[in-house]
């Protein structure tokens, strides 16, 4: 059985799907990615589907599952490179891929992940400040 390679680039795992995947190959990719996220500690996954001329409900569901599993493992997934005809077909099929981040190409996908990472960092800082304020308020009240 063929396998889709997973490349590590800095803090990102990059997957380019270049073959017409059998269902088993898609499921294997799902497992491989989960393993690699844990092994590398990467915080971003980019899945490039620009070579796919169709995405059916099985592949669509697999992409959604990959995104959910990644999130649980503290990694954000971006699906990039979807062809216009594939987007039209997916929506008509009834699959709008909720919960999946998309970008038009790998470069924009990387920018999106980098931006999210900074936003999360700032949110964490602000969140801590709020917590400190709340602690002070408690101290002041007592």
């Amino acid at each position, binding site marked *: 059985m063929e396998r889709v390679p997973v490349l590590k680039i800095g803090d990102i795992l990059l997957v380019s799907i270049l073959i*017409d*995947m*059998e*269902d*088993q190959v898609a499921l294997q990719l799902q497992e491989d990615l989960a393993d690699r996220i844990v092994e590398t500690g990467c915080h971003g996954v980019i899945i490039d589907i620009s070579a796919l*001329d*169709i*995405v*059916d*409900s*099985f592949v*669509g*569901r697999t992409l959604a599952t990959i995104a959910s599993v990644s999130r649980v493992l503290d990694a954000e997934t971006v699906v990039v490179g979807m*062809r*216009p*005809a*594939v987007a*039209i*077909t997916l929506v*008509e*099929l*009834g*699959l709008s891929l909720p919960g999946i981040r998309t970008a038009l190409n790998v470069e924009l996908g990387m920018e999106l992940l980098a931006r999210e990472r900074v936003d999360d960092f700032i949110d964490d800082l602000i969140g801590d400040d709020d917590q400190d304020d709340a602690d002070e308020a408690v101290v002041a009240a007592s």
Partner: protein
Amino acid sequence: MTAGGDIAGMERLAIRSDQDVVRVRQLVRTLAVSVKLSLVDQTKLVTAASELARNTLVYGGGGTVEAGRVDNGRRIGIRIVFADQGPGIPDLDLALTDGYTTGNGLGLGLSGARRLVDEFDISTEVGQGTTISVTKWCR
């Protein structure tokens, strides 16, 4: 009922494995290009064929597909007929409802495939099997 007989240059494939589902996609893609379906219509037809081929495998326990060019005098198109001798579909209306599934899929295969083609005919009998014929016409 649409039989495979009126399909010109008909190609026939067995659907018994995941690999066969890929072969069905490749066959339909080649046919769709040969009659010059638009890119979006090619994509829709191949996607519909992928859904129905998987249904034939998963729910029908395997079967056959016949595909080829059709001509109604005004337009040409591609017709694909999926047939299995599986358990059949007891409640067709329910099976054609978005989100309904007896398996572990999304329940979009049958209802979604119907939206992606121009003609969709289904005949099914419990205990006998299911035959689905879909057609996409060139615009």
